[in-house]
């Protein structure tokens, strides 16, 4: 039901952090000295690129003809009926090339890397979707690509490991710490510190030092730009709530962005509740965390009393991360956005129910957002309109869900 006049557009330059990269008290640039000049140069190059009509035109061309944008906004009537009768719309990022929103950011940054003269991309990945997107962009633009991935995640997202290798990327397993996303980011940064002369660090979420939270949100802002125009065209009004899963926070920032100034629209981020909200068994930063400084930014963080980062758990690799992007910390502190969590069990139930009700198998990350819809729909009732960011498709998760359920579907 996509209306033909909707074209992929970005929201560039209207909601910048301050010059030091702060959103309120959150953000900044907490990096080792060797990387300071790199993030400064990156900021300059990015601010220049986003003003350049040729850069924007090339990005739009790729998003339209390669990625397949705009993605549909699908009214999930059976899911709505099962959710208190509210009208529920799914923003179908699962239908992009490579199957998740990650490609929007990966292509934007890979174009920037090329413009800056890098020959090699470094990326980290949790669920493997950002790794696949980066490997894809590297193949398309003829760049080398090295992807760091925790060995724990390599085991549960084996399909994506194979896809990355097929695309010509080198996947390097990371054994240290919890062998998940945060450890992959540590290792990617260690690589970048040594290779900064010819390599570009393609960070996959709206976290890390300035300018990444801004840049990643702006490359993902295409999601919200489209969704807002689509919901106005299809429902004739703004939604009551926009819901998205929050790992580092890129798909959520991408869809929230267009609605931040619409005071009537509730912005709801859904974190991973894991097994229980106790230390080491979840990744709900706003439920169990505190402010801190981690991987380049000041934000909310799961940590112990001594300031060490604690272990996390989620059935979804892409949400299994100890910190949240700084702009979310800011939106939470101002009350503009609310944050809830869905546990493993609820996410697995939503994974199945979306398949049964709508014929759509979501990524386990996205299933956390879907899991929140039932309660929200009942709260809003039949008059309510909800837009959910369906950030990715679930093919990558089919094997691990089958293992968890003993093969019962």
């Amino acid at each position, binding site marked *: 039901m996509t209306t033909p006049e909707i074209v992929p557009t970005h929201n560039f330059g209207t909601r910048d952090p301050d010059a*030091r990269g702060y959103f309120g008290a959150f953000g*900044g*640039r*907490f*990096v*080792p*000295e*060797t*990387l*300071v*000049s*790199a993030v400064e140069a990156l900021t300059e190059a990015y601010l220049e690129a986003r003003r350049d009509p040729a850069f924007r035109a090339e990005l739009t061309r790729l998003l339209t003809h390669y990625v397949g944008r705009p993605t549909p906004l699908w009214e999930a009537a059976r899911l709505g009926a099962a959710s208190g009768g509210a009208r529920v719309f799914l923003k179908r990022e699962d239908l992009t090339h490579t199957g998740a929103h990650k490609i929007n950011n990966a292509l934007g940054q890979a174009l920037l890397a090329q413009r800056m003269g890098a020959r090699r991309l470094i990326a980290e990945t949790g669920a493997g979707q950002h790794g696949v997107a980066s490997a894809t962009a590297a193949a398309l633009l003829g760049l080398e690509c090295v992807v760091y991935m925790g060995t724990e995640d390599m085991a549960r997202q084996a399909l994506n490991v194979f896809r990355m290798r097929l695309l010509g990327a080198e996947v390097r397993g990371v054994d*240290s*710490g919890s062998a998940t996303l*945060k*450890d992959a*980011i*540590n290792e990617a*940064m*260690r690589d970048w*510190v*040594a*290779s*900064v*002369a010819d390599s570009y660090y393609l960070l996959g979420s709206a976290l890390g030092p300035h300018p990444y939270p801004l840049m990643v949100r702006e490359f993902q802002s295409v999601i919200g730009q489209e969704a807002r125009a689509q919901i106005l065209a299809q429902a004739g009004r703004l939604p009551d709530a926009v819901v998205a899963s929050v790992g580092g926070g890129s798909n959520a920032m991408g869809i929230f962005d267009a609605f931040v100034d619409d005071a009537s629209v509730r912005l709801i981020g859904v974190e991973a509740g894991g097994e229980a909200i106790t230390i080491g068994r979840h990744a709900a930063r706003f439920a169990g965390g*505190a*402010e*801190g*400084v*981690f*991987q*380049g930014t000041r934000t909310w*963080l799961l*940590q112990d*009393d*001594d*300031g*060490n*980062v*604690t272990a996390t758990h989620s059935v979804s690799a892409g949400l299994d991360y100890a910190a949240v992007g700084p702009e979310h910390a800011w939106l939470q502190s101002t009350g503009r956005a609310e944050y809830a969590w869905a546990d493993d069990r609820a996410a697995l139930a939503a994974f199945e129910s979306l398949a049964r009700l709508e014929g759509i198998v979501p990524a386990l990350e996205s299933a956390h957002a879907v899991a929140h819809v039932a309660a929200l729909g009942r709260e809003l009732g039949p008059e309510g309109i909800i837009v959910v960011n369906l950030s990715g498709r679930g093919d990558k998760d089919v094997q691990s869900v089958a293992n968890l359920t003993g093969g019962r579907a």
Partner: protein
Amino acid sequence: MSRLDGTFARLRAEQRTGLVAYVTAGDPDLPRSAEVIRAVDRGGADVIELGVPFSDPLADGPVIQRATERALAAGTTLARVLDLAASLRADVAAPLVLFTYANPMVRMGIPAFARRAREAGIDGVLVLDLPPEEAGEARASFVAEGLDTIFLLSPTTSVERIRRAAELGGGFLYGISRLGVTGARADVADSAESLAARVRAETTRPLALGFGFSRPEHVRAVGRWADAAVVGSALVQVVAEHAGNPDLGGEVERYVRWLRS
């Protein structure tokens, strides 16, 4: 004049290359770490850097990562490192510098951290992921407690930022002699000499060069361009190899003495 200022003034007067020795505090555990630190001091290190173990040491190579894991597993925390320093202060001649990531300090509260560091007899603090642009609050607390704020410089640091670090910093400047994480290498990088020349052109503040050094020839080479050489991973490796040795202290002391030969 701080204790660090005194040390570097003396090195210059004696025309001697200083040795800055880094150990991960609490590695392999707190009691043996105390023994190691005393041995480093006996071996003649001019400055001792105590690394505070942190769960995510993203600027460190494998040797210090492993040391960090051992120290954390043995229950080392920032508070216990401060207690350790306090317990050693009276017996250790060298100035003590804390080498930490930002989050443990932020978690303790920066003013409280600075006060406790001063009370423990710490002379300077180097925060790896706190470049001058982010260091305002911390530096104010450090200055208030009479602690030197030590900034890092790297081959990628611009001239303006070298000047700013020299202006805002105290004690000495720590020059990262090569791109990359910590870890011993066979040779002194060419980038060491050019970084030292760029720093010298901007400031008379003492300069220690580090990253990759492990042998007396490295220390002597660095002495041609800088006030001191930092030896870290190689010393941490000696601790790792002799952790179970009853003469751990003797091994460490001999290694440090050899570095100065």
